[in-house]
């Protein structure tokens, strides 16, 4: 019985005395029904909330996507006429304006997400690995690097909005006035440049999370591995390739998935950066759906788009989990 040894690690001496052999059957004393019901009781608050705020709205959202839901029916949405698959066919008719815009927004989001996640991962991992050893100022640097992550989105993004201003922004001042890289000051929050503006802000805000997770992952790698490798004559580069990166693999699998979902679904950053209507080059899907619902007042179409987005995310996540779990299995063999 391990109970005794573990209990003796606890401060309470009472525990040690009582957990003599035989008494370990103690939990049985609690009533059977109580024991069976207890986990459900503990889960109840979370369950009720999840139902109210996530699952029921999702079902309603799906129902809404089959309705002709415009602002006229919003007060009493149950009475809105059925639309069948109309909202869906409008959304996926890619040669018509609504569908074309959705498809465009989808590709912008994919490109943006891949670039942003890739850069966040790269910068975060590099920083974590460079800071694996102790050196002077490491603690300060680490705290500093977490600042973008800790800042509230609107405060951080609004600062970037200021920096991207056409006339009085830092970016144009540096690129045009100081470095003379551009013929005339550029617009960053409208037009094609807005994609890069969004990407910059997203990476600035997002990489510290990768840094944090990879740092946590690095702490789990036993130091002996490096010592043994160093004794065998493995250089830093080989240690990185043979020990660090493979050990980080399970961490990275979770990290990349989480970063992907967060970036793909990000609403706050583009919304604060551009407002209710994003420029075409940076028209991320969540803002696009928001605009379809709350600016053009077509909630039915907006819901259909949301459901399509959800299906896409389910498929991507499913495939990703399948691939990574298979990878993990083969790695074990």
């Amino acid at each position: 019985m391990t109970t005794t040894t573990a209990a003796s690690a606890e401060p309470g001496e009472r525990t040690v005395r009582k957990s003599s052999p035989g008494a370990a059957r103690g939990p049985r004393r609690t009533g059977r029904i109580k024991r069976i019901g207890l986990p459900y009781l503990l889960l109840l608050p979370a369950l009720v909330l999840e139902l109210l705020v996530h699952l029921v709205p999702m079902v309603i959202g799906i129902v809404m996507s089959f309705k002709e839901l415009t602002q006229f029916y919003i007060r009493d949405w149950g009475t809105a006429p059925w639309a069948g698959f109309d909202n869906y066919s409008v959304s996926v008719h890619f040669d018509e304006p609504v569908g074309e815009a959705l498809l465009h927004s989808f590709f912008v989001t994919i490109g943006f997400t891949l670039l942003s996640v890739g850069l966040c991962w790269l910068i975060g991992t590099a920083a974590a690995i460079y800071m694996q050893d102790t050196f002077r100022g490491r603690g300060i640097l680490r705290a500093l690097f977490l600042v973008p992550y800790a800042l509230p989105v609107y405060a951080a993004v609004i600062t970037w909005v200021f920096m991207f201003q056409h006339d009085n922004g830092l970016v144009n001042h540096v690129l045009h006035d100081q470095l003379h890289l551009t013929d005339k000051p550029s617009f960053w929050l409208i037009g094609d440049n807005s994609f890069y503006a969004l990407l910059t802000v997203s990476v600035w805000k997002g990489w510290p999370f990768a840094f944090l997770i990879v740092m946590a992952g690095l702490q789990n790698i036993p130091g002996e591995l490096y010592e043994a490798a160093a004794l065998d004559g493995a250089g830093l580069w080989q240690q990185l390739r043979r020990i660090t990166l493979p050990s980080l693999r399970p961490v990275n699998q979770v990290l990349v998935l989480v970063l992907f979902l967060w970036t793909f679904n990000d609403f706050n950053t583009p919304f604060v950066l551009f407002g209710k209507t994003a420029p075409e080059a940076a028209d991320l899907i969540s803002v696009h759906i928001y605009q379809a619902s709350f600016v053009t007042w077509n909630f039915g179409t907006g819901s259909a788009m949301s459901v399509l987005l959800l299906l896409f995310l389910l498929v991507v996540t499913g495939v990703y989990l399948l691939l990574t779990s298979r990878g993990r299995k083969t790695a074990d063999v």
Partner: protein
Amino acid sequence: MSSTTTHRSPMAPPRSFLWSRRIFLTLLTGFVLVPVYVMVSSSLKPLADVSGKFRWLPSGLTLRPYIDIWSTVPLAKYFANSLIVAGAATICSVVIAVFSAYAVSRYSFRGKRVFTVTVLSTQMFPGILFLLPLFLIYVNIGNATGIALFGSRGGLILTYLTFSLPFSIWMLIGYFDSVPRDLDEAALVDGCGPLGALFRVVVPAAIPGIVAVAVYAFMTAWGEVLFASVMTNDDTRTLAVGLQGYSTLNDVYWNQIMAASLVVSVPVVAGFLLLQRYLVAGLTAGAVK
């Protein structure tokens, strides 16, 4: 878990490594710091300075923006709203997550897998998906019961606490799993009820994870924009929406915007930096298994 736990290779790294590290970390520090510098320096500039061409150094320093921010918009009210909403959402979400994670970590029961998968998968759904249905539900509940959820702080609290809940439960399950089961079994033997075991043994042992979850929940609520901008009215407006008030038709008070941004950021950033080692520890045990 102190910051010095990771020693790596016993031999000194080569010069080339040191140089590449120096260059990389310097560039990265610049990237991180420039917006912070802009925020701080602009908040101390007179309006003429921030309306004209950008300049690295202010022509004169003034604390005026820090005084004016409170009267240009009712910042104190927004601040209080944010504090109430984020605080309440954090407390509720931590308590609920502790119970759920304890159930999942310590008991086997029918539907356990369904529960964890469902909770986790809500993480991946875009917030925009819930916005309109939730708005309708809150309005309906309001009409049926008279409980005002739409436009009230209560509705926002309810919404926010479920946003942080999946991640919190997920992290705490991992954290509770790392607390040796024998410890709370011993407490049960000792005559504690399951809740006694939870609060006397598991919770104290999992404090870093719980702190991490609380920090995360607070930051999520403090920084949320979408629901705050749709679901609040003049009285319940949070900082996320309130900061937009500094741009008027005539003027954009950039110095005040920066001052206000700084003021609303300081509590979270300070709290985060103070507690970040718990967050790292929590992530080690929870998210990163």
